[in-house]
C-alpha cells in the first residue's frame, strides 16, 4: 500500500513578506528548495506557528541565498510578515519515511539537518 509520507520539512522559517496585492503561492530561497529536495510548482503545507493558521499552496523559486520566504496573494490573509512558519512536503511511498528536517538560522539560511529525535 502506498502511504503519503512526510518528505521534507523546513522548520521555523521567518516570513519575509506577506502582501495580498501580489500574486500568490510561496516564494522560497532556491538554496533551501534544493536542500529540502523540493522543486518549483511542488505542493506544500504551510503551518503558521504564530497564529495557528494552516494552508496549502505551491512553490515559486526565489533568489538563492536571499533567505526569502514570501507568502503573497490570498494566503496573506492567514500569514503576516515576521510570522514563524513550518513548511512541509509529502510524497507517496511504500517504504519508510526518510524525512528531511531543515533547521535555519535567523536569516532563513540553512543551518543544519535535524534528526527526527530532536524535534
Amino acid at each position, binding site marked *: 500500500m502506498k502511504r503519503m509520507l512526510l518528505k521534507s520539512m523546513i522548520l521555523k522559517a521567518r516570513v519575509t513578506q506577506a502582501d495580498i496585492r501580489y500574486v500568490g503561492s510561496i516564494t522560497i530561497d532556491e538554496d533551501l528548495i534544493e536542500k529540502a529536495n523540493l522543486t518549483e510548482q511542488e505542493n506544500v503545507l504551510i503551518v503558521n506557528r504564530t497564529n495557528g493558521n494552516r494552508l496549502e499552496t505551491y512553490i515559486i523559486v*526565489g533568489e538563492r541565498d536571499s533567505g526569502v520566504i514570501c507568502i503573497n496573494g490570498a494566503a496573506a490573509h492567514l500569514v503576516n510578515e515576521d510570522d514563524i512558519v513550518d513548511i512541509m512536503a509529502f510524497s507517496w511511498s511504500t517504504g519508510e519515511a526518510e524525512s528531511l528536517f531543515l533547521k535555519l538560522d535567523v536569516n532563513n539560511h540553512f543551518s543544519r539537518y535535524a534528526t527526527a529525535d530532536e524535534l
Partner: protein
Amino acid sequence: MFPSLLPAVVRHLVYPFYRGFRKDMVLSILKDLEDNQWFSKEQIEEIQWKKLKRLLKYASGHVPYYRDLFKKRGIEPDEIENLNDFMKIPFLTGNVITENSGSLVTGDPLIQGYASSTGGSIGDPLYFYCDLAAGPVRRANTIRQFRYAGIDIGEKQLRLWGGRLDRAWKEGISERAKDYFNNIRFLSSFDMSDEAMKKYVSIERSFRPSLIVAYPSALALLSDFCKRRALKLHKPKAIITSGETLYPEQREIIEEVFSAPVFNRYGSRQFSNIASECKQHNGLHITSDLFFVEVIDKNGRPAESGEGGELVVTDLSNYYMPFIRYKTGDYAVRTDRLCGCGRGLPLLDKIEGRSFDTIRTPEGKSVGGFFWTRLSRTVPGINRFQIEQKGLNRINFKIVPGSEWKDEFKSVLEEKIKSNCGDNFNVTFLVVDDITLAPSGKSRFIISNNEERFVIKSKIHKANITATNPDLNDGLRIDEELMELADIAEHEKILVVDATNGARLETFAVRGPGGKGEIVACGAIAVQLSAGDEIGIMAFTWSMERDSYFSNILVDKENKFVRYLTEIAGEKF
C-alpha cells in the same frame, strides 16, 4: 608512419628529459604519490584534512565568492574540524559556476590558471578554470594509476577517445609529436563505422599496444565488431575504460575479445582521474590524497558504507578556481571495505553514470543502465541505442541497426521490457540512422526525467465569484471554457483560495455553461465564498513532468481569459 619508440627509451630518456625541460616536478610528485598510497587509511585522512583546511582558508582569504559565502553563512574555515562542520558549506553546482565564474577565481596574482570546459556530455558544456600548478600533480596521478594496471611510463598506449576532437583548436603538430614521443596513438570514438573499425583493427595489430584506454561503449562496439567477424587482435597487458559508466556486459565482451583485464577508471575534465581499479578489481581506489570525495544520499546526508549516492568532489589542488563540494551528478556506492592490495586509498563501488540516468516505472521502480545494456544484447543487430523517458509509463527506444537487425526483434525486446517494467509500460521503437553523440564523443544512452512529485498543474488567477447557490450540492461551477483552458476536468479536485477574505477550501469542479464567465459557489462552500469575492482556483497532480503541464491562466473582472502566465517571484498583476 615512423616506427614506434622502445618503451625503455621513452621511460628512461625521453620522458625524464622532457619533464626536466618543463621543470614541472612530475617525477618527484609521482614519488610522493607512490608513497602516499601505501599509508594507512588514517594517515591518508590526515594528509587530506591538512590539504582541505589549507584550501578552505585560502578560498576564504582570496576567492571573492567563498569570502562572501562564508561570511554570509558565518563559516570560519579555522573551525572546520570534521565532516559535519564541512557540510555547512553549500554544494557547488554547474549553475553556480556559470553565474559566478568571475568571483570564483582567486585574486591572488601568484596563482596562475588556464581555461577549460567539459565536453557537454550532459546538457551544456561547463566553462571553468584549472590551476596551472595542479597539472603536474594530475599527470603524476595518472601515471600512478597506470601502474595499478601494471603499465609504466613509455609503454605503448592506444586511445579510443573523443575528447581530443572537441579541443581541436589546440590540436597541432606539437600535440602529435608529444603523442609520438610518449608512445601514444589516437583513434576517434566519433567514427565507429564498419570502415573505420576495420582500420582501427589493423592499427591495433601493427602498433601492438601494451595499454588500451577507451570509452567503454566505443570499445565494446569494436569488440562486438571483431567477435562477429572472428578477427584476432593483439593482446594488450591491460585495458583502462573511462569517461562513461562501464557495464558488466561491456567488460565481459571486451575482456573476451582482447584477452586482457579491464581496469575501470572514474574521472572528469574538471578533476582528471578521481578513482581507479587496481589488479584486485575490488572497487575503485579514490585518489583521496588529491580529492575530498563525499557520497551524498538523496536526502543530502552522507551515505553509509554499502549505500549509494551522488559523488560530491572537492579538488585539493585547484587554488585558482576552488571546487569545494562540487556536485558531479554521478552516482556511486560508498564502502568501508579495505582492498587486499594493501593500499590505504579508500574504495568506491559501482560507479554509475549520471545519477538521474535511470528510467522510472509507474510502480516507482528505477531501472538503471545495467538492465538496458543487457537487454540490447539479447538480440543481434543493435549497433547503438538510446532510451528516452517520455512519460511515467512510456519510453522511446531508438536503435541504430546493424546488418543482422530484424523488425520482429522489437516484440522480443518489448516483451522483456514489459516483464521488467510492467504490462502498462509503452515502448515506441524508432529505427534511426544515427544517434547524436554528446560533443565529447560519449554516448548518452539513457535520457530520463525527474522523480514524481505532487505539483500544481492548473491555476486560474483572479477569478470572481459571480453568484452563490447554497441549496445545490457542494462544488464550484466554472465556465467550461475556462476549465478547458486551465486543463481542469469535470469533477476534478480543486483548491479554492479567497483573496477577499482569506478562506481556503477544497472541493471539486463542476462544468458550467461556456462563454458566460459564470463562477458559482454551490452548497456548503457558499458559507465561506460570497458573490464578488476574488478567488484563485488550483488543481494538483502527481507527475514527473513539470512546466509543460502547468496550465496557468489569468482572467479579467468578467472572468474572461486574458493570457497564459509564467510566474516569477515578486510579480504583481
